[in-house]
């Protein structure tokens, strides 16, 4: 062990200047996040070309990764395991000891300081000790992932330039190739008609144990690959074998994409006690809401699929639901059956809101599911967005080829579907609309920095606020929306937010969220249509914060007897806030 520590000490001396710089960047990044509100005056978010702290934080994050690459490359390649000229090869240093020395160095000089600074940052930004402790495994996991991946690349190359090239090929080139192959394959696969229902497995990524199983799955495979390749290279010095392992690992990552939902994400329904018991919930399709629209399928638009699709849309209404709970039809697996009893077609539709992290829109143009969730949160209050009052939400019930539609439009058919509902909980908090008003719940806090009422006679109001939010990938998906509510008029107005946001970890926060510090500028404007919003509306208004969290899912069956397609209106409806 003494000799191992001796090797670590020698590496520390060798890399001391780089390590100083590294620590400086880690601390700078923490300072940027921790003191973001003080460093970012209200005026910076007003000006279009203002200095952006978030851009600077990104730059620091990129520099940090670059510097980490240099440090790991220097550390590993100065005692190279490739070739036969390294100094250590003729010295009484075993391969295992050399590997242990490098690992100890990385733990002591990179991972531990990184962890300490991040934990300190969380603590200083008001995250509770409990949440701070919960963050430790995630910080360690991500740090380990970055360090192990770089170590793997450094171990199988002989210089920083080659390491970057190998990294580029492995991390960018192969995924691009995979994307190309996948696109070409899907062009042929999805080019025809409908899906058979049995092909699609119900695998909803809720409720959590893990934020998004795809990212965690990919990260885990990458981490295991990195550890295996670096370990293999150090212990055997068989570089060709290690490179083959690296390629195999990257291919495994690519092949495993999209396969993690079923492994990590699918959980039994009803884990949360607030998830409704399906037996107690009635689900119906409002027949008067049914509507046929034409599909904006890119394959059709590109002319790759000549069979134009007709989309059957309608409102699915479950009731009763517990208070504070909202549901979104996440996946509809449907079938149309002819009077003869033979199926005409099957179709599966998935909600963007439920399945994609990016599917949750901002409040300016609330998409269908977002608006539906907020409307369920507000219960009885009209939701006004920029386009006007949000109308009833219609889900995509079925998609049918135009030709098939035309041939069977006059026949009475049976529509049956299994609907998998995503269950969400809305937590609503109220803030007085005045400077200094604060909200705090656990590790999350908000403070109104200023309320600009100068434009309220024209119907505009601007609110600046600072927001510290803490969440971890295992907490599941969460969305925070700010609205102005006038309780006496039973109206809520969605705002348009713009702001400077600093997130930790900076480059991976969309996959592995931890801490978000935002200086938000919320701009509320009267809708283009609908009720008028004036100074008196704002006088009675309060700011509400809707914190929407995924809880889980439940499934129900729905059925429509004697569905005659020609009786359904055909249009391309675009009421405000409807139809996502």
């Amino acid at each position, binding site marked *: 062990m003494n000799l191992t520590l*001796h090797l670590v000490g020698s590496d520390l001396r060798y890399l001391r200047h780089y390590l100083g710089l590294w620590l400086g960047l880690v601390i700078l990044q923490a300072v940027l996040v921790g003191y973001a509100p003080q460093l970012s005056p209200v005026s910076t978010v007003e000006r279009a070309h203002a200095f952006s702290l978030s851009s600077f934080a990104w730059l620091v994050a990129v520099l940090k990764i670059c510097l980490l690459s240099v440090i790991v490359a220097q550390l590993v390649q100065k005692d190279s395991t490739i070739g036969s000229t390294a100094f250590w090869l003729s010295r009484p240093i075993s391969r295992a000891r050399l590997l242990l020395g490098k690992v100890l160095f990385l733990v002591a000089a990179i991972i531990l300081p990184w962890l300490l600074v991040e934990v300190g940052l969380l603590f200083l930004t008001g995250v509770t000790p409990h949440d701070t402790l919960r963050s430790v495994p995630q910080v360690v996991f991500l740090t380990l992932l970055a360090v192990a991946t770089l170590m793997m690349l450094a171990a199988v190359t002989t210089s920083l330039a080659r390491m970057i090239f190998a990294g580029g090929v492995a991390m960018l080139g192969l995924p691009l190739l995979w994307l190309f192959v996948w696109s070409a394959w899907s062009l042929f696969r999805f080019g025809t008609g409908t899906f058979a229902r049995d092909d699609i497995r119900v695998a909803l990524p809720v409720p959590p144990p893990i934020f998004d199983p795809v990212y965690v799955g990919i990260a885990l495979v990458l981490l295991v690959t990195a550890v295996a390749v670096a370990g293999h290279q150090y212990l055997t010095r068989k570089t060709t074998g290690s490179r083959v392992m690296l390629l195999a690992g990257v291919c495994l990552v690519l092949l495993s994409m999209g396969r993690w939902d079923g492994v990590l994400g699918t959980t039994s329904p009803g884990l949360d006690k607030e998830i409704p018991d399906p037996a107690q919930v009635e689900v119906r399709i409002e027949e008067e809401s049914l509507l046929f629209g034409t599909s904006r399928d890119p394959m059709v638009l590109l002319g790759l699929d000549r069979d134009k699709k007709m989309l059957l849309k309608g409102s699915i209404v479950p009731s009763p639901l517990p208070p504070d709970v909202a549901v979104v039809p996440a996946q509809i697996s449907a079938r149309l059956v002819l009077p003869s009893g033979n199926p005409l077609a099957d179709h599966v539709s998935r909600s963007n809101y439920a399945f994609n992290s990016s599917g949750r829109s901002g409040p300016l143009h609330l998409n269908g599911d977002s608006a539906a969730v907020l409307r369920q949160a507000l219960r009885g209050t009209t939701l006004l967005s920029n386009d006007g009052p949000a109308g009833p939400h219609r889900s995509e019930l079925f998609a049918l080829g135009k030709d098939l539609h035309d041939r069977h439009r006059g026949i009475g058919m049976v529509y049956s579907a299994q609907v998998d509902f995503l269950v969400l909980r809305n937590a609503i908090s109220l803030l007085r609309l005045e400077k200094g008003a604060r909200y705090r719940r656990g590790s999350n806090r908000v403070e109104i920095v200023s309320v600009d009422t100068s434009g309220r006679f024209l119907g505009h109001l601007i609110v600046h606020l600072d927001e510290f939010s803490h969440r971890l990938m295992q907490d599941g998906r969460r969305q925070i929306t700010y609205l102005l509510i006038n309780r006496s008029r039973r109206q809520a107005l969605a705002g348009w937010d713009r702001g400077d946001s600093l997130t930790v970890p900076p480059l991976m926060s969309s996959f592995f969220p931890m801490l978000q510090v935002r200086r938000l500028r919320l701009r509320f404007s009267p809708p283009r249509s609908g009720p008028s919003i004036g100074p008196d509306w704002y006088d009675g208004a309060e700011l509400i914060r809707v914190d929407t969290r995924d809880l889980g899912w439940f499934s129900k069956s729905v059925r429509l007897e004697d569905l005659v397609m020609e009786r359904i209106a055909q249009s391309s409806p675009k009421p405000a806030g409807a139809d996502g």
Partner: protein
Amino acid sequence: MNAIIETHELTRRFGKTMAVHNLSLQVPEGSVFAFLGPNGAGKTTVIKMLMNMIRPTSGSARMLGTDSLRLGPAELARIGYVSENQQMLEWMTVQQLIDFCRPMYSTWDPDLCRQLIRQFELPLNRKIKTFSRGMKVKASLLSSLSYRPELVILDEPFTGLDALVRDEFIRGLLELSGRSQWTILVASHDIDEVERLADWVGVIDKGEKRLAEPTASLQARFRQCEATLEPGRELPETLPDSWLVAERAGQVVRFVESRYREDAGDQSIRSALPGLKDLAVRPMSLKAIFLALARTYRLYE
């Protein structure tokens, strides 16, 4: 003979190139073994296989009684290795290099280290990267000899050393090996460098062993011969296999006898050359033997 290094049909192939072919060799304990061969003969490849730096394609090697593939810290602590190809820790000063190496060896000898520093005139506080090539070799030697290794392997150690330093180094090495009973394997393409040093010689060419034997026996069996034939006499159609690089100029025939026996005198030569008028037989230097061998193998190709 107690061999400290042993190879058995050691073979290494790089793609289509056969770098070392079926090399079987023994280096006796306590010897100074000159491992000779022209550039590209395969000396460095053999040494790297001995040191487990590269794996043999086939065959095996043993160092200090251990299979070279299992050479571990315990064996490496008993081996001093200096090579012109070895990377040095150039970011260190000599003092830092000493401090780095010392804890690895329980046999580290501070007195010997100081003596070598004096002998090599190495500045302790200068970074190695600022050194000339010769100085770097000296620093490498310092870090490889200060722990009194039982086996010293030197791969082209004299590259970059000027004649004076080389001379001093050879003297120092001889002194040390004599005093400490070290076994030294010196690989070189230049016989001049090791002539005074070696008591055993091995010659390798194109990856194959040409000979390996004690210097004394080699010098005893090689003789430079100059025979003058009687006028009108022709050379026999076939000459003995043991005659190397035979040349004729008029009635004078010059060759190297590689199986000369002191006790038999000139008898075998005289019987092979009827009509011999005069014969001069001279002992040969190691360099002359090496050159004769090199010319022979090239001639036979």
